[in-house]
């Protein structure tokens, strides 16, 4: 399944659809180049989770925590190129806790992700358009992806 967004606003809206459906312990992994919309989509997820504060890029600080309907860990592995550093970050506490977890550059810890999670892959089409592909693992995320897809189709 894939969705094409025509603007940052549409990417954010897609994130909101995902965020509305996230529960405790859910992990969403985001893959895509710089400027492809990962943080933008996460801002939408935050809105969907009822988070009122602005969600900023956590590239520098690696992990941001936000409080919403479900707490959200927003993790950004941009600056971590070596997987041993990720082990030392104490990733288990984030990935296997009572929060939802969105991980930018999540492919860098692919083997550490829980068996059931949602991977999203971002591709540039042009300056504002992005292709976002859904790779759900497990029934729960398959259903979530289907529901988001349905909802986006209805909205258009």
């Amino acid at each position, binding site marked *: 399944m894939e969705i094409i967004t025509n603007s940052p606003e549409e990417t954010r809206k897609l994130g909101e659809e995902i965020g509305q459906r996230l529960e405790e312990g859910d992990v969403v992994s985001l893959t895509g180049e710089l400027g492809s919309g990962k943080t933008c989509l996460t801002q939408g997820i935050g809105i969907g989770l009822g988070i009122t504060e602005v969600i900023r890029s956590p590239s*520098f600080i690696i992990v941001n925590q936000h409080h919403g309907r479900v707490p959200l860990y927003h993790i950004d592995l941009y600056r971590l190129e070596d997987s041993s550093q990720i082990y*030392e970050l104490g990733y288990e506490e984030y990935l296997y806790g009572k929060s939802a977890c969105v991980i930018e550059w999540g492919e860098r810890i692919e083997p550490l992700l829980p068996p059931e999670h949602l991977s999203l892959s971002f591709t540039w089409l042009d300056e504002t358009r992005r292709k976002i592909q859904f790779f759900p693992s497990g029934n729960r995320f398959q259903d979530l992806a289907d529901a988001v897809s349905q909802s986006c189709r209805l909205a258009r």
Partner: protein
Amino acid sequence: MSCYILGIETSCDETAASVVADGHKILSNCISSQIDIHQEFGGVVPELASRHHLEAINPMVELALSKAGLDFDQLDAVAVTYGPGLIGSLLIGIATATAISFTKHIPLIGINHLEGHLYAPHLEHPDIEYPAVGLIVSGGHTELIYITAHDRYELLGQTRDDAAGEAFDKVAKVMGLPYPGGPIINKLAGEGNPKAIPLPRWTIFKNGHPFDFSFSGLKTAVIYHLRKEPRTDPKDMAASFQQAAVSVLVKHAIKAARFKEVNTIILAGGVAANTALRESLTLEAEAREMKVYFPSPILCTDNAAMIAGFAYHKYIKSEFASLDLNAVANLRLKVTTQASSNR
């Protein structure tokens, strides 16, 4: 009789320790990445993991004391950054400071990293007068703050996506420049034409936050331009990007100072070392008879002297932390007006 305070800062990449006397006399200012005690990590790969802080913290504290010519018994207090930052990193600094406080029976002082940055120019200019507008620009922060006293703030604006320094580093990465890219962009830009590539410079936020920033769009515009025109001269690219980023920062800072009717602007954080930002802000401020203060480059980056320096003002007011001081990853500035705290 001087008041000696040991400061410790481990909020993100840097492991730093410093001794400052009476809030402004820097006796030592030690930063692990500068001194390169762990060359294998130094500068290139960020020292994110607590283990790296753990390895560096004791040598840093000892170095700070020996350079200051003091021993633990001569300290009047120990101060430490307790947020905002990466939780595991913050905890190493806090554990160290707490241990020193407990064993040496000296007060423990908890400092907000952002307050430390805002204080940094005072270390060299103890005469800065309030009220002032402060602009913190670094890899993790872009905040515009109205300061009425040493510990009285109002948040005027902040980034809605990427921090200013983050935009510099990411643009550098896309241009194939090594990390950290900010200083390299600064250098290349000096030789390029800032008007060569038109880039977006202005984002107006409709929902009543006129001092907020956004750097994600600028970053994306640079990436898009380089995809279309891969042969763009890196000097022109650097100059055009830097000009766009700096002009937004300067315009906002000046606009905020005029809005608050203050004549003092304080520039702080790693990006405050950018020469184009310093020059442009100074020029624009002086044209309006405003004064700009910024720290030396070593005090722009994350350091412990700003922590020890600011701690003095808490020391004289006996604002001490208890030994159960905890790290607060998303610590905010204690703002004085409700309107800007609910952001």
